[in-house]
């Protein structure tokens, strides 16, 4: 056996290490010290201090050079999705995230590369508009002391918590809860290394996600689309506000409109296109009633839903808690799912027979 053989990591070992890391991550998340309870009503000064802390964190996540491993989890009624994500960021190269990295995979293969973006203060302000913010206490994450900022709904229930590194101001951990207080999403650094001045995003990482995700739609164009029958609400129930609209052209006159909404904690994207829904759900989707709306659902994180309404076909992609997506469905046009029963088949067949017997009818 050579030295290289001795130091090489076999795939089985990699899987074992990943599994152990997942267990450690889950354990850290579940056994973390409880946060000091905050008053449901935070004062203006509390709000200002909490919002300033979040601004610092958002700025640090864009200005610092760091790398590490994040544990990302989402809890849905259909099950739990978990992933280990290798994160590398530098201000010039942007953010590279590789899910479940393995020794056999090259560094930037299958990575999602997000271009360096400036902080959008308006989007951060949405968080403060929708939720009551406060500094809830202190905690620890990946061996670092952190300030904990809490976001509460108007009803007083906790909607989200942020662990912010006291030294670097980097966001170390984040959790989102549903109306009932159940944790629905969580992400946290398991290890983190700051390397100021040493770029960690290589030039080879050129495959930038979303580079071809259509062209921006401004407010004037959006009004035109609304006048043409496109339903594009400026907000959705639960404090979700429209923060971006894009359009992806197809063929001569087809397009898919992408409407993105956020409440500061979660994001919901609506993809709207002309057309009719087939009677069979796409692969991986199943029929289910969400609220009282029958839709095709793809469980996972993010969750996906498909339905038809207002002569358009809608695809919802969201990481929001179930209550928020159900409320969004209620606010959007909705038809029944296509019927593929005996009567529908007979009707289609008779229609085809009729058209064959008399093509001019």
């Amino acid at each position, binding site marked *: 056996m050579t030295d290289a053989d001795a130091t090489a990591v076999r795939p089985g070992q990699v899987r074992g290490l990943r599994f152990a890391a997942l267990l450690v991550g889950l354990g850290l998340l579940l056994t973390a010290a409880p946060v000091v309870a905050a008053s449901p009503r935070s004062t203006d000064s509390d709000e200002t201090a909490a919002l300033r802390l979040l601004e610092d964190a958002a700025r640090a996540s864009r200005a610092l050079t760091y790398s590490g491993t994040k544990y990302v989890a989402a809890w849905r009624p259909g099950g739990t999705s978990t992933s280990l994500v290798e994160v590398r960021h530098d201000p010039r190269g942007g953010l590279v995230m590789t899910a479940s990295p393995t020794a056999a995979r090259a560094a930037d293969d299958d990575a999602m590369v997000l271009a360096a973006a400036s902080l959008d203060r308006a989007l951060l302000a949405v968080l403060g508009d929708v939720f009551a913010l406060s500094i809830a206490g202190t905690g620890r994450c990946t061996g670092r002391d952190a300030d904990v900022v809490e976001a509460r709904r108007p009803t007083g229930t906790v909607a989200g918590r942020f662990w912010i590194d006291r030294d670097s101001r980097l966001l170390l951990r984040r959790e989102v809860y549903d109306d009932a207080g159940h944790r629905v999403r969580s992400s946290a650094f398991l290890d983190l290394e700051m390397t100021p001045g040493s770029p960690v995003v290589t030039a080879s990482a050129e495959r930038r996600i979303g580079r071809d995700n259509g062209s921006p739609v401004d407010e004037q164009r959006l009004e035109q689309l609304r006048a043409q029958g496109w339903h594009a609400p400026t907000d959705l129930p639960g404090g979700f506000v429209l923060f971006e609209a894009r359009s992806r052209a197809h063929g001569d006159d087809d397009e898919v409109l992408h409407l993105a909404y956020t409440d500061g904690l979660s994001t919901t994207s609506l993809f709207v296109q002309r057309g009719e829904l087939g009677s069979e759900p796409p692969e991986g989707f199943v029929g289910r009633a969400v609220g009282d709306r029958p839709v095709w659902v793809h469980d996972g994180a993010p969750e996906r839903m498909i339905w038809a309404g207002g002569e358009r076909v809608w*695809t919802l992609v969201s990481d929001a808690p179930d209550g928020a997506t159900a409320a969004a469905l209620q606010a959007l046009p909705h038809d029944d799912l296509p019927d593929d029963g005996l009567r529908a088949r007979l009707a289609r067949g008779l229609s085809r027979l009729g058209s064959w017997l008399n093509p001019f009818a």
Partner: protein
Amino acid sequence: MTRACLGELLTALVDGALSHAERERALAHLTGCAGCREEVEAQRALKARLAAIAGTPAPPDSLVRSLRALAVPGTDPLARPFGPPQGAPVRPRGARPGGAAPPAAGPGRGPLGRLRRTSTVGGGLVALGVSAALLLGGAGGAPASTPVDPGSVDFVVDFVSTTSEVPLADPVGLTLSPPR
């Protein structure tokens, strides 16, 4: 491969209802799928027969007379295509078995015979029509007529890209593994 390969695209292809691009894709698939080729041929044959039925002109009187002349004297095969064989006893309405039939009510004639012929022909046509309608109605229903597959993963990629603009967002799009 089964008909499910092309689904309703197949029937739309037979109907000539596909766009140029869809038609090209469907034809490309047919070159490699014997099952879909057979289904297309079967539907085209059925369509051709139905079109022929609808467009068949009435036979000229001379042909009818010639056919009548070929028949056995005293019989009229054109008048009773589904009638009972010659000489078979037909029990008229109200007559008992073994009883004498009225001379005027010959085999296959009279109200009962007409009713039976009508019922048989009508029932057969209805059954044929229902079967054909169910076959042509298909199990797949109408195809999704959208420029982009509404279940496309591209939408998730766009979602992740957009989510990254929200300050302090989770990289939740990377947990695309199915729930466990």
